[in-house]
């Protein structure tokens, strides 16, 4: 176990770099009267670091170089769609007309921005088949909460107050039960069958008059397209429930299948996954929600709309409208606009054909990796996968090696590890999502590394258990990190 305090010495903290009196600015002489601040408002001590601008720039540049990101290496983190984000997205989102505006500006002065939101809504409708879109939710789980609140509002508006039960398949995303619980619903887990689909018999048993709906992740967290999807939707609809689609895995189906056509009533997109906006650093994300015609009146407002049609001479006038039975605002202002400009750019650059090709390559890449690894790693649900697949990181003849050790060792090869220990229905899960933006050479290098690691697991297990060896920081003490939280700004006194 590496001692964090020693290994981090490769880059001192800004406090350690501090030198009394050093500063990154020099103000001119004061040419206005000096304002006296009352003593009661002054503090005696404010131990901020004192550095020159060059110290700060170098410190943070060095820190950034210790990180792994999509721009530095392969990042097959299952379910996260860590595709390469084209740099043109950054250029367009920094255009002054998009970057230097304020949401409270008169709407006539921000027509381009509202128009962009409107077109993005229209494109997302076309891609998904839905009738209404809100761009407000801040990210995926926020989109889920929004969608579930819309489902509840729909049932209540019909006077149907008994519908309190939400079905969640065991192959769904982990946030689904949390979103339902936060909306005050009761959760019933539905098992998977032997092919990794939703178990229809178990589903039917729960479809009654208390059913609010089901939350389906399709393709599911096993990376499989649910072969029973149509029957699942029919069964839930016949019982009076609604179908929520978790669109986190949308990258597998763009331009190929539309959730609304499959029977889904509500779905959130993850612009930060599917539509190439940066999210490795924790955000910001964007989780627009699409709904059928029947639910459109419940969408949160405001929504971008054409309030006055244009003609050959004049462009239309864009404005913001709130749907009739809206569940209300769920985010300040209009959502994460900067993320929308990036997603808009991505869709415009690729076009319909390009989006379809992106999904096809994402699926092809995942199947290629699965085929290369199948003889070395157990694939518990082994059939043609979508954009990702789940392998087991454990062998009976190497009992002391776990998925975590394999992942840590992968870092020595310069790869970000796959998602570990999820979904829970696969023991020692390694969830691998290569995305479409990787070359065959990268995929081969990754497969070669995993095959070599499987060999090392038998011959030099220590090498895995003490990995990583070639990273700036070695194996971290995860128990200590979880148990001894230090969330203060100042380092404890030595």
């Amino acid at each position: 176990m590496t001692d964090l305090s020693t290994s981090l010495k490769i880059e001192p903290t800004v406090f350690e770099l501090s030198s009394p009196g050093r500063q990154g600015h020099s103000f001119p002489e004061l040419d206005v009267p000096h304002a006296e601040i009352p003593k009661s408002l002054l503090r005696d001590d404010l131990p901020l670091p004192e550095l020159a601008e060059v110290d700060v720039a170098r410190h943070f540049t060095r820190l950034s170089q210790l990180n792994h990101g999509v721009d530095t290496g392969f990042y097959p983190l299952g379910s996260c769609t860590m595709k390469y984000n084209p740099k043109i997205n950054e250029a367009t989102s920094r255009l002054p007309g998009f970057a230097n505006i304020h949401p409270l500006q008169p709407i006539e002065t921000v027509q381009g921005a509202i128009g962009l939101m409107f077109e993005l809504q229209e494109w997302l409708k076309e891609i998904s088949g839905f009738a209404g879109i809100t761009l407000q939710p801040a990210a995926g789980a926020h989109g889920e909460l929004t969608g579930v609140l819309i489902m509840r509002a729909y049932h209540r508006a019909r006077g149907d107050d008994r519908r309190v039960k939400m079905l969640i398949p065991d192959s769904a995303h982990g946030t689904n039960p949390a979103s339902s619980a936060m909306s005050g619903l009761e959760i019933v887990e539905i098992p998977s069958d032997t092919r990794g689909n939703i178990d229809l018999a178990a589903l039917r048993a729960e479809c009654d008059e208390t059913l609010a709906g089901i939350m389906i992740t399709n393709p599911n967290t096993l990376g499989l397209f649910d072969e029973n999807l149509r029957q699942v939707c029919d069964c839930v609809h016949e019982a009076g429930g609604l179908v929520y689609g978790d669109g986190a895995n949308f990258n597998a189906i763009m331009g190929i299948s539309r959730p609304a056509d499959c029977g889904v009533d509500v779905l959130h997109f993850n612009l930060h996954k599917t539509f190439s906006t940066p999210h490795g650093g924790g955000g910001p994300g964007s989780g627009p929600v699409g709904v059928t015609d029947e639910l459109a009146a419940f969408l949160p407002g405001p929504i971008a709309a054409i309030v006055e049609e244009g003609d050959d001479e004049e462009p239309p006038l864009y404005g913001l409208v709130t749907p009739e039975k809206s569940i209300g605002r769920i985010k300040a202002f209009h959502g994460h606009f900067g993320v929308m400009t990036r997603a808009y750019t991505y869709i415009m650059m690729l076009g319909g054909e390009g989006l379809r090709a992106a999904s096809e390559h994402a699926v092809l890449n995942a199947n290629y990796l699965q085929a290369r690894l199948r003889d070395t790693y157990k694939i518990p649900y082994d059939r043609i996968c979508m954009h990702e697949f789940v392998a087991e990181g454990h062998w009976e003849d190497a009992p002391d090696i776990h998925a975590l050790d394999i992942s840590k060792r992968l870092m020595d090869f310069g790869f970000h590890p796959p998602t570990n220990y999820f979904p829970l229905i696969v023991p020692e899960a390694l969830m691998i999502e290569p995305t479409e933006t990787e070359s065959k050479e990268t995929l081969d290098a990754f497969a070669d590394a995993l095959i070599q690691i499987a060999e090392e697991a038998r011959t030099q297990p220590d090498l895995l258990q003490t990995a990583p060896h070639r990273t700036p920081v070695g194996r971290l003490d995860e128990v200590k990190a979880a148990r001894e939280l230090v969330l203060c700004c100042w380092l404890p006194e030595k």
Partner: protein
Amino acid sequence: MNFPKELKYTRNDEWIRMEGDEGVIGITDYAQDQLSDIVFVEFLVDVGESLEQGETFAAVESVKAAAEVYMPVNGKIIAVNEDLPDAPEKVNSDPYGEAWMARIKISDPSELDDLLDADGIAKLERDH
């Protein structure tokens, strides 16, 4: 994997040890092994509450996953192990001893007949 003979087990890997008409509850050696390092234990009930079989009374969290702990039988909570939240690692080191979670008063002892014995749970986990 260690499943003491004198205990009864649920399919969700809780154990219960009978002491008169009271029962002591915890999670199995298999459960702690699957979860790996436990970093968090929280009791979701108060002493004196009556719970039904299958209701959640505690939550445990490891570096890998979070799990709920369910009542093996109907009963009233007489005590919870107050020391455990400050020393969750005991669930890993001594799941059947120091890491007991709750002491309950059992309402209907015949419910115990539906639980698994040591051989039953060992077979169940072997087949997993």
